[in-house]
């Protein structure tokens, strides 16, 4: 029991715990759309695009979240625009944006002369370094994301499932698609300090993908993703504390382990029950 409660004596640990729960929750909810719409690669590109924003914030002594947020949302909307208006294939456009924005971040970072911050904490996250002000910002941002999902719940579901039918019956499908991309960008900003630029896509994709393996209904999918997301974030934080290893990587490893377990024993998995397999064979 001490193992659980002892770290709670430290404020930094409590803040990290709140941030982990929030990131796990928001990533799971938005990640459900990412998985259903096949946006994993876009998520990866947006997270890397946050880097130049973070470095610009460092250079201009501005807010970390503002810099990351502007860069991520701008990239998300740009990818959305290119996929609608350019003759390029979307994955080609993403490949260009992905590397280009990250290179811009590295370029700017290497130009910093006055002081040299630790780049690894941006790449891999440092959840224990989240300050009280950071936490308020994260809670507000996470709240905005969850509120938008709640407000546009029906519309997002219809537009994700059948964009043609939804658009024909009058739903603003193009705007809803931009909204999903913006939500992905904001979610990445909420989670980037916890797990870092490189691993944040796992927070977004893995819990929802795990849930997809075991659920036949979107509400169940999202609920399962939330449980997996929060559980692995909290579990990973404690495990990293006990073992004194990197928290972001530990969280992601736990998620990956849960995903592999679901793959093996979930619907259709080689170790799943026969009934579940039969159901999967039909349900596809």
């Amino acid at each position, binding site marked *: 029991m001490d193992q659980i409660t002892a770290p709670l004596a430290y404020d930094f640990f409590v803040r990290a715990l709140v941030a982990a729960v929030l990131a796990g929750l928001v990533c799971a909810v938005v990640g459900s759309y990412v998985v259903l719409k096949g946006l994993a690669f876009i998520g990866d590109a947006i997270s890397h695009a946050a880097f130049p924003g973070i470095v610009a914030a460092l250079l201009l002594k501005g807010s970390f979240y503002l810099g990351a947020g502007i860069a991520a949302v701008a990239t998300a909307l740009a990818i959305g625009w290119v996929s*609608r208006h350019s003759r390029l294939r979307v994955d080609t456009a993403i490949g260009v944006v992905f590397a280009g924005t990250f290179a811009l971040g590295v370029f700017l970072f290497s130009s910093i002369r006055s002081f040299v911050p630790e780049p690894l904490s941006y790449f891999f996250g440092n959840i224990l370094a989240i300050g009280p002000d950071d936490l308020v910002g994260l809670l507000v941002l996470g709240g905005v994301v969850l509120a938008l999902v709640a407000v546009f719940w*029906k519309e997002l579901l219809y537009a*994700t*499932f059948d964009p*043609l039918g*939804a*658009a024909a*019956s*009058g739903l603003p499908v193009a705007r809803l698609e931009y909204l999903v991309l913006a939500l992905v960008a904001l979610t990445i900003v909420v989670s980037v300090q916890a797990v870092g630029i490189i691993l944040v896509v796992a927070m977004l994709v893995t819990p929802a993908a795990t849930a997809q393996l075991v659920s036949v209904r*979107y509400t169940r999918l999202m609920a399962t993703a939330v449980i997996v997301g929060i559980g692995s974030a909290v579990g990973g934080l404690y495990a990293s504390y006990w073992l004194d290893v990197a928290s972001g990587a530990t969280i992601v490893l736990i998620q990956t382990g849960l995903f592999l377990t679901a793959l093996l024993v979930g619907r259709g998995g080689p170790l799943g029950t026969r009934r579940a397999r039969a159901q999967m064979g039909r349900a596809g």
Partner: protein
Amino acid sequence: MTASHHLHHDAAGDVAPRVHEADAAHARAHADVWAQDVSVGYDGDPVLEHVSLAVEAGTLLAVVGPNGAGKSTLLKVMAGLLRPWSGRIEVLGGPPGREARRVAYVPQAEAVDWAFPVTVRDVVTMGRYPALGALRQPGPTDRRAVSAALEQVKMSEHGATQIGSLSGGQRRRVFLARALASEASLFLLDEPVTGIDAATQEDLMDILEAQTKQGKTVVATTHDLACAASRFQRVLAINRTVIADGPSSLVLDPDVLSRAYGGHLLVLAGRTVLLDDAHHHDEPPRGERHYHDDRQRP
């Protein structure tokens, strides 16, 4: 009989009398769908050129033509999903999309992700979403409308089933139920009777016929010429432009068909055999995902 019920041989040789100006204005005023000289395509490649038509309220119209003729494209223009490059089109008295809540569009089966975690009831309930507006959740009225639509397509027992475990015919029933639940005035159906058993086809056509008797308008693309001939009141034969337009008995004669279908048609002692009538759908346009579900039950 109004202008649109005459047989127009637009592509070659004016067999029928041309529509007079006054007739055209009359047709436009009474049409649920009215198009004049519409051309449209994807990425600079034209798919349809110079399409003119008028579909009156209460019409049961089949759009036929070979693969790549532009049937789905025409439906998408009517649904407001594609903007014409040139020409004019009005749907329910305004530009496409203005009366979107009175339009129900059903995509072809390949454009639907059948593995998506939704149940039959979820899908039919979506038909109610546009009229509800943001923030309002479906209430008792919506649930009744959904139940009634499921009843009509004989899918009441399957409400809780995930859509991927349905047969091809059941899948078409569910999407028709969604259109019925939306209480639309105009049904735009892409291949609603493709790849389904005869009993389902009869059921679905009975429902559509009943809808048109209530004044609703149905425009459906189809590969199935037998169904078009026997169940639809009017047929529009297209192949990149309008080849023929009129009562099904007149349009579906071997002469017209051979022009619509080019060389892919065999006429044997007055009986027409279509050679390329596979269920191959058109290549999906850029930005549209198609799903090929090999695990679908027969």
